[in-house]
């Protein structure tokens, strides 16, 4: 079976600072992978490389069988790679319904139509509302985004990514800054995503990682340290040393 996403020998440096070194990961179809590591390990950098926000100095990124290493970020989204951001990156003045409808319209290829009213795109509006409702954002989808509670804004991040109908979804600390209780609900929503979607999430809370990830990738200093099942990771002395022994975040 072909992996949903593969990186081969990804390398990225800024001057003498190496942020990704020979990073090779393979995400099987429908996987739920956690990416962990101390601050500065290069986790977000890896997401930036996969989504095209950064270009690697060398290496390859394959989505299914297609190489996407040199593709522009918006075209990668159209191929099926979506992400969320660790710090909310939303549209404060737009309503969630508008923002998600825009993402759906873009996927349907009608977002550059200027001569027809938005409300006329019924299937896009329906789909946007369904996505929002599935994340419990239905009741607030007509408010300005800036007026949403913080946790709701985190969910909107995910809603925007889902609107692109991703094959691979990269979540950068989806529950960052959210109280534990709400964070759990947020991960329930992620766990309930269709198994067609391959998920990689960055998370600091080990309890969450062990509960929701089928496998765990550990990064340290821009390199992969190891990959394994949650139990293997928890038992590994190296991981304990570099990561679990330290102060926990989030």
């Amino acid at each position, binding site marked *: 079976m072909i992996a949903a996403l593969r990186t081969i020998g990804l390398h990225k440096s800024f001057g003498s600072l190496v942020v990704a070194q020979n990073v090779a990961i393979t995400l099987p179809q429908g996987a739920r992978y956690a990416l962990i590591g101390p601050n500065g390990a290069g986790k977000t950098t890896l997401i930036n490389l996969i*989504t*095209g*926000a950064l270009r690697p100095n060398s290496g390859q990124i394959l989505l299914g069988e297609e190489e996407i290493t040199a593709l*522009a*970020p*918006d075209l990668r*989204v*159209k191929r099926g790679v*979506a*992400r969320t*951001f660790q710090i909310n*990156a*939303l*549209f*404060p*003045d*737009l309503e969630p*319904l*508008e*923002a998600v*409808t*825009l*993402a759906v*319209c*873009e*996927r349907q290829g*009608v*977002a*550059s*139509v*200027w*001569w*027809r*009213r*938005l*409300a006329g*795109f*019924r299937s*896009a*509006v*329906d789909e*946007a*509302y369904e996505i929002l409702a599935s994340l419990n954002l*239905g*009741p607030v*989808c*007509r408010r300005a985004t800036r007026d949403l509670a913080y946790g709701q804004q985190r969910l909107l991040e995910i809603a*925007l*990514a889902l*609107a*692109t109908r991703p094959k691979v979804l990269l979540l950068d600390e989806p529950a960052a800054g959210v109280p534990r209780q709400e964070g759990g609900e947020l991960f329930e929503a992620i766990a309930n995503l269709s198994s067609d979607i391959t998920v990689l999430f960055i998370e600091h809370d080990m309890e969450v990682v062990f509960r929701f990830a089928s496998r765990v990738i550990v990064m340290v200093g821009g390199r992969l340290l190891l990959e394994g099942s949650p139990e293997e990771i928890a038992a590994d002395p190296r991981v304990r040393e570099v990561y679990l022994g330290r102060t926990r975040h989030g």
Partner: protein
Amino acid sequence: MVIDPHGHLAAKQRWHPVEFAFWFATLLPFVLIPTYLTLASQIAITAIFAVSLDLIMGYAGLVSLGHAAYFGLGAYTAGLIAKAGWGEPFSGLLLAAAASGLFGYVTAFIVTRVRHLALIMITLGIGLLLYEVANRESWLTGGNDGLQGVTMWPLFGRFDFDLYGYTAYAYALAVLLLVVLAARRLVHSPFGLSLRAIRENERRLPAIGVPSRARLRAVYTIAATIAGLAGGLLAQTTQFVSLGALSFERSAELVTILVIGGAGRLYGGVVGAIVYLVARDRLSGMNPQYWYFWIGLMLIGVVLFLPTGILGGLARLQRRMHTDDAHG
């Protein structure tokens, strides 16, 4: 709570009774103040120009201090076509718009690469460049003396551009209506939504698949085309083009007008054009030398007390009255 997302989105784009009242009121100058029809047509033309700037500045968030380049190019194109012997207004106007649109399309590749101060400088540069080209090539443009000898044929072959400005105002008003109708469609479309998203958080857009630069180039081209329409109208209705059509003052004045009226509100430019040009007419009548003083004062007052312009202030007032009603 039952939510109807379609109804909610449809309600935003529904015609407001005030809009109908406004368009009815635009007919009043014909009967109430027929001696001011020339001013009224200047206002209509400036309003078209301001709607054009609103699309890029108010909706997409691109500030321009050189928008007169497209206005002036349209004006000279329309003027030169008429001077060359083809005085038919509609075709001349379409060619003027096409020339500005083409120039807009080409310059958009540079303009949309930069933001903030660099963007202001580049648009300013484009404006200055075109001004000096027109100034230097006086064999074509008449240079400082302006383009003389522009003779228009009657509209529809029947209505002469008369001294009182009946035809001029009717013509400019009709074009304004068409431009506002088109702009109204645009801002309520998926394309318009993507422009607002660009204004709100451009860096997020690639992550939902939106090629933001291509969208910006498209709206810049559309705005340049509309500015060309406005410029062409000015040339045709006054049968004259001066270098002022390309000047920095005209670009700066336009930004002022949009800020006063309210950017990103479709009618903001129209309201701004009315307030600004009527004020200028009154003030320069009272004090021909120092009237810019009052414009300056008005600008400071609006920015301090009505940061979202006159229309933004009115919308806030309406919301407040609405909530007061609700709380009984």
